[in-house]
């Protein structure tokens, strides 16, 4: 299973990942439109944590034992065949239980349209997630987890790559 990993030692807190994430999840996917014309503005699906000189970009860890999966009452939060935890926004009721239980705080309340939980979806339309592609210092890498992901719940086939 491919995941996004951060390398704290090279993160310089420029937040370009955040900007490009927002753009990728906007309606037009055009940076100027996303920031200047589309209101309410799209939400970035990652957070850049920063304290002093330390910083890193954090998005959904696709936990092997994901509390959001257990907490989701509508069945919107699902694990796909590759092991990625994804939110089916059609089913999401906006109860925010996932937001409450996420230990990393990387699920946000998206109230821009239909009220849904917004989280990293690994940019299904791209070969490489937008944040990874935008990082100028390769502080974000998109690669296979070093430890094969355990097949939690759904019939996971490890090493099949990202959902297309």
């Amino acid at each position, binding site marked *: 299973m491919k995941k996004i990993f951060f390398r704290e030692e090279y993160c310089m807190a420029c937040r370009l990942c955040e*900007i490009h994430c927002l753009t990728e999840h906007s309606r037009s996917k055009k940076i100027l439109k996303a920031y200047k014309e589309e209101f309410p503005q799209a939400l970035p699906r990652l957070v850049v944590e920063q304290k002093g000189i330390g910083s890193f970009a954090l998005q959904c860890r696709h936990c092997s034992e994901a509390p959001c999966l257990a907490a989701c009452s509508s069945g919107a939060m699902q694990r796909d065949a590759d092991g990625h935890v994804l939110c089916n926004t059609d089913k999401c009721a906006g109860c925010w239980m996932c937001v409450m239980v996420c230990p990393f705080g990387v699920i946000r309340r998206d109230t821009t349209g239909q009220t849904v939980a917004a989280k990293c979806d690994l940019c299904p339309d791209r070969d490489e997630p937008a944040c990874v592609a935008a990082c100028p210092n390769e502080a974000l890498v998109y690669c296979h987890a070093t430890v094969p992901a355990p097949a939690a719940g759904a019939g996971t086939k490890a090493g099949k790559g990202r959902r297309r």
Partner: protein
Amino acid sequence: MLFSDYQVKRDAARCINCEVCVRQCAFEVHSTDADTGTVESDSSKCVSCLRCATLCPTQAITIDKNELQVRGENNWSTRTLKNIWKQAETGGVLLTAMGTDRNFKIIWDHLLIDAAQVTNPSIDPLREPMELRTYLGSKPSRIEFVRERSTYRATTVIRPQLQLRTPIMFGAMSYGAISLNACRALAQAAQELGTYCNTGEGGLHRSLYPYAASTIVQVASGRFGVTTEYLNAGAAIEIKVGQGAKPGIGGHLPGKKVTEDISRTRMIPVGSDAISPAPHHDIYSIEELAQLIGALKEATGHAKPISVKIAAVHNSAAIASGIARAGADIIAIDGVRGGTGAAPTRTRDNVGIPIELALAAVDARLREEGIRSRVSVVAAGGFTNAADVLKAIALGADAVYLGSAALAAMGCHQCQKCYSGKCNWGIATQDPYLVKRLNPDIATRRLVNLVRAWSHEIQELLGGLGINAIESVRGNRLRLRGFDLHEHELKLLDVKQAGESL
């Protein structure tokens, strides 16, 4: 009070107030207005390193030279007057960095390379082997054999040599002047390329010992970080006498930059200024240089080539002859366009001579005296492309050092503010927040790419010359022609005028 050198222009129609520029600028040019949330710029602080413009996701920023100029005549340019105003304010020596930006004639650009046509065939380097391997070190003037029954055995002892896969090395840049990430990138790239980097005078950081076999360790007048272990770890030892950007003066790493790591590497107290004296206080003559060379050879069991690096100055040829006779294996000459992390502006811009002329003079002198094979000559100071390298080799160099070009490969945009310690590209800084910006793996890849590209280009040029080994072009000045050079320059370079046949 000075009016700003640059003008930061922000296209409001494109700026999305994302604050990338605010976070990236160590000079604090950009800031966000607390009330409106809009980002604004203070041009007076801008050094034009172009970090913000490069990273701006909407290309909203452009940085122009401030068109505001004083009305003075040629003699009293804006730059001249600004320097006077600065000195009137501070009473101090003007400080700058990198290579000189004066409009010196670049002789490389006036030398043209020959190509094979009809009477001798050119070679296609993609189809035929093309040798760039270079050995640096003292070569014997002749080889002696003894006959043993049916075979012969060479009795000549060959002094230690450095083997380079390409005649391009990375010049001396110390840990202190540049960040550890930059040092690591240079070391990793040198190892991958089969060439060498140079510690400069800052010692070898503990974490870089695994790359020591690809590292030339320097012994400079401050003797920072010099231990027996250090000397024995390196592939060769270089005695730094001078530097092209600042011949005749020493170095000064401000205490502010002497972090704990640098203190340990240089073996000086944290926060103390690292001052390299102008001369080596134990070298006041060629004889004393010979003593130091001898001492270093003794310390390393005569297993390492010893290099002596000098700045290209008026008397370089005679000095080089002395260095060769003092027992050095390699002479490195750094020309007036060489770079630095900090130098007085007047020294950088006025002292020394161009590498082209110094190199030609040194090579000619050593050949005249019949001692050219005793030493290898490494040229440094302002190599900007592969053709420069080939021309230098044709003028007599064995290899070249890249400094500024290597920094540029890592991201340097030549803002010339290395001495400020605020390098926004994470190269010439020790601020941990800025150092993180240089991912050594990316920098290594870019350095390797650059040297590979130049090596390919050298092979192409060699193929055009109909030569299949770099050895055969070394000192081959007949394959160069001068164009738009004075007669005396041609004579010094010992190069024919373009249009002249053999």
